[in-house]
């Protein structure tokens, strides 16, 4: 019998280290260097990552009266999320301006946010889902507006916050409906009680309302409108975090809901997600085409990636779950990498914002430029990078599910996407005659983070077997527990 606490060990560690950071922040001199706080937070997240891995060795099971469930599935996403948060913290250590105070809060918020995101992947009680979602959301709302002296920072936070709450209200309404239909809010129970639900209409209504909330979180079209604005205004290291970690968590939630709670509605959500997937890819890619602002462009691209991810759900068996797990990992690696580099290159004042501003980076710093190219290539989906295998698994899963047209549309879309990634890549590669802003200093933290992302991108592209194995183990464990 595993003590309940072990099931939430990473979250506990994260919470404690968050508190520790806060306390240390308060204890420090007002003018003291706050970077050690970042290292402290990083340490906490690392320990939590270790704890998550250790959790993987536990037998699968639930805790707290069926509130959370840990298994290979949750472990996979825990590790992934901890990794992302770790990278984001490391990126922030060097990226935030020297002498800016209150960084303690910043790191604490990141760590606390991780609590919510991690919990989201293991929660099987909708109330826990709701609270975890709010924890992760509120911390990212605040982080998005962290550059509050700029015009865009608060606007970004405001849009994210209001629209986020708007969507959460839908999700909550959905929870209410499913509660009303089945009398429970525990995901496994929902699945079993669904056929006996009081009103099937209400189930459908609940499902639709919950989808609104989740699809908002994964920024799938047409619920994507917030993404570009929020990314533009947020500090780049935060974008590295919030374009990945909350999305990863939201996808885990989506999988939980679809396969854990509503497997019976398969025939309903399959075409629905087809449409959403196609819409997301197309809208994201087309809108990114003419985008001049680098962050907005990548925001649109993340919408498209949500589409590619959703395409995997067209598959059958446990394949889609494995494909989504793998895709999120690859996507996280390359997105953290590219945003990390943008943060490094653009500097703390974010003096480079348009794509043209990135001209000459490769010539200026072959290392930074080369890595940027690597990540962009991976985003395009060129083989021998993680991005390729991610797309490959996603679409081959879809194909095996018979969705040839979806795969075709998706891959043509990735062709269109190549245009804007490449426009960025070309800008990076092209030498510039005039004066260029220097590339920022490579701090130790940045080096670790970016190289880890680069390494992950390459490993996922050249030897994806290991991660894929983990992903399919996760999927199988998920399937064996939920029994779909």
């Amino acid at each position: 019998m595993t003590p309940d606490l072990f099931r939430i060990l990473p979250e506990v560690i994260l919470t404690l280290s968050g508190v520790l950071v806060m306390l240390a922040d308060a204890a420090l001199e007002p003018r003291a260097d706050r970077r050690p706080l970042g290292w402290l937070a990083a340490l906490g997240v690392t320990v939590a990552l270790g704890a998550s891995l250790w959790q993987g060795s536990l037998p699968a099971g639930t805790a707290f009266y069926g509130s959370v469930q840990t298994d290979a599935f949750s472990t996979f996403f825990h590790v992934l999320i901890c990794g992302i948060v770790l990278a984001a913290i490391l990126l922030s250590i060097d990226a935030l301006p020297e002498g800016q105070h209150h960084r303690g809060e910043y790191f604490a918020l990141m760590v606390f946010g991780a609590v919510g995101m991690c919990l989201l992947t293991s929660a099987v009680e909708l109330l826990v889902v709701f609270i975890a979602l709010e924890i992760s959301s509120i911390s990212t709302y605040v982080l998005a507006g962290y550059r509050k002296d700029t015009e865009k920072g608060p606007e970004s936070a405001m849009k994210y916050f209001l629209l986020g709450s708007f969507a959460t209200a839908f999700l909550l309404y959905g929870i209410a409906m499913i509660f009303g239909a089945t009398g429970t809010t525990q995901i496994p129970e929902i699945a079993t009680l669904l056929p006996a639900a009081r009103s099937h209409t209400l189930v459908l209504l609940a499902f639709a309302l919950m989808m609104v909330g989740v699809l908002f979180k994964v920024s799938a079209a047409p619920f994507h409108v917030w993404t570009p604005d929020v990314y533009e205004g947020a500090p780049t290291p935060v974008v590295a975090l919030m374009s990945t970690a909350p999305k990863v968590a939201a996808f885990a939630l989506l999988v939980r809901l679809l396969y854990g709670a509503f497997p019976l509605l398969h025939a309903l959500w399959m075409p629905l997600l087809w449409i959403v997937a196609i819409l997301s890819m197309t809208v994201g890619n087309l809108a990114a085409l003419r985008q001049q602002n680098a962050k907005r462009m990548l925001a649109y691209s993340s919408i498209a990636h949500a589409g590619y991810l959703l395409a995997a759900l067209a598959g059958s068996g446990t394949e889609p779950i494995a494909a989504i797990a793998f895709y999120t990992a690859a996507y996280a690696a390359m997105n953290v990498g590219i945003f990390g580099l943008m943060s490094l290159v653009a500097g703390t004042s974010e003096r480079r914002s348009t794509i043209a501003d990135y001209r000459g980076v490769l010539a200026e710093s072959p290392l930074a430029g080369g890595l940027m190219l690597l990540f962009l290539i991976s985003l395009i989906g060129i083989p021998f990078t993680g991005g390729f295998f991610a797309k490959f698994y996603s679409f081959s899963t879809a194909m095996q599910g018979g969705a040839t047209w979806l795969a075709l549309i998706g891959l043509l879309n990735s062709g269109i996407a190549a245009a804007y990634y490449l426009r960025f890549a070309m800008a990076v590669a092209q030498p510039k005659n005039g004066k260029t802003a220097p590339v920022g200093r490579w701090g130790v933290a940045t080096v670790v983070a970016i190289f880890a992302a680069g390494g992950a991108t390459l490993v996922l592209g050249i030897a994806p077997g290991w991660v894929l194995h983990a992903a399919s183990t996760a999927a199988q464990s998920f399937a064996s527990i939920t029994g779909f």
Partner: protein
Amino acid sequence: MNTPVPADWYLLLSAALFTMGVIGFLSKRSLITVFMSIELMLNAVNLSFVTFAHEWHAVKGQIFVFFVMMVAAAEAAVGLAIIIAIFRVRGTLTVDQIDRMKL
């Protein structure tokens, strides 16, 4: 004397309030009232929860409402802080004027 009310009346009221919250979000020009509209939506959801809790004789529904209140409080704190921050840099709370980021 104690005429019972069909449960779906409560649900309809909840739906109506929810929709009015959405309308408020869409139509109000001041950030604060937009935020209030969200609160209205949450309240509407709460009503549904309580109704269903009553229907299922399940306490969980009510506890949900309790948590929603707490979340709403937390959101209010953060949301209002954001509104203050935005007012500082923009000097206005008019939604239509806070559209610096676009296209």
